[in-house]
């Protein structure tokens, strides 16, 4: 398990998974507050966040469907197969890889792992190239396609390029001592 305090891990576990209740649940006004019975019937279809799904699924209280972006014959898989680099993963699942890694062992689908790897490999190359070449004007548009992790890689790529350029040009002779920069930042 990732770090307990890891913000990204927490948010990744908030992603919704379509699930079906296999059993009645008492005392849970989970989805419809207008419902007085305070009970969820077996067979109810709901989207539950992953942090709830993992334990419930392991205890066989619910059955789940793999989210559509990981599904075996989903559109996403076809698109990734066609041209992974330009698929808009962000709108489908901003924590695509993290969630994929969490859900694969849970449902025991052996094809998810290789699928993630292929997607990441192709997209990673594209991210690095784009980090080099994109101008500021086009970058925001490209960033909307990336998952959170990829966006971080993109930024890391950009900053290392900036650092490299600075080093090659010789850079400014003086480094600003933090004490000196401070005063003006505050005002």
């Amino acid at each position: 398990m990732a770090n307990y305090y890891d913000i990204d891990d927490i948010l990744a576990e908030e992603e919704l998974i379509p699930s079906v209740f296999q059993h009645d649940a008492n005392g849970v006004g989970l989805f419809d507050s207008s419902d007085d019975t305070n009970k969820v019937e077996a067979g109810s279809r709901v989207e539950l966040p992953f942090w709830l799904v993992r334990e419930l699924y392991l205890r066989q209280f619910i059955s789940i469907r793999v989210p559509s972006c990981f599904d075996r014959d989903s559109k996403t898989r076809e698109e990734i197969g066609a041209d992974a680099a330009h698929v808009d993963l962000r709108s489908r699942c901003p924590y695509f890889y993290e969630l994929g890694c969490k859900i694969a062992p849970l449902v025991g689908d052996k094809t998810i792992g290789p699928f993630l790897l292929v997607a990441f490999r192709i997209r990673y190359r594209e991210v690095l190239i784009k980090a080099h070449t994109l101008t500021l004007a086009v970058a925001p548009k490209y960033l909307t396609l990336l998952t959170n992790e990829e966006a971080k890689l993109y930024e890391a790529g950009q900053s290392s390029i900036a650092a490299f350029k600075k080093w090659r040009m010789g850079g400014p002779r003086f480094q600003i001592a933090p004490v000196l920069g401070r005063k003006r930042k505050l005002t």
Partner: protein
Amino acid sequence: MYGRKATELVKEFASSEPGQLSTFNNDVFAQVLEECNGHLLHLEPLMMNIQENENKLRDKRSEEEMGMSEDERGNSEAEKMLIQSAIKSDQFGALIHHLSLLRNKRCLMAYVYNRAEVIRNLGWMVDSVLPEEIEEKLSGTEKEYFKKHANTLQSYMAEVDLHLTVDMVPPKDPYIKVRVLDDIGEVVLSDQVANLARHAIMFLRRTDAEQYITQGQMEELTS
């Protein structure tokens, strides 16, 4: 849906710039705590129900052992099934509440922990007193935390007799180029006697210039 508010809190932290704080969200924080109490209220009767039903089940079993006719046996089987299913429903509900509690706890802890980390870092960047606009974003306990952390840092630095918070990045050059913003006049510096007239641009020793810069009488020129 359970856990929404708590996630909101974490999202809020995630969306602020790294290393910067937004105002401590007392409202949502309190709402999450309230939600936790609500979960507990739901959880307790469920646990009681489970206990009761389990007792009933045990009674039935002991009755069976005493011996009974075929007819009764069939009846009691059916009853047992019913009770078992009720137990399972209660357990299901209880589990959901339990998980929601854990989730809320994790979100709250992460929120507080990550903010504390930012606050600790602030201790290295500003001296022991926080600027007002940052201080008003902290909660009461966070203010105290900062104060104590700053004090600890100060006492450690006093112990080793070294001012650690100065120059986190080693300066490349002892001299810097500054522009004088105010008429300061003739001053004896550590290595020279300089006439610090307004708008003059000069090379000074960094240690000399620092005090003027913090007072706003000079600014550093970066090439």
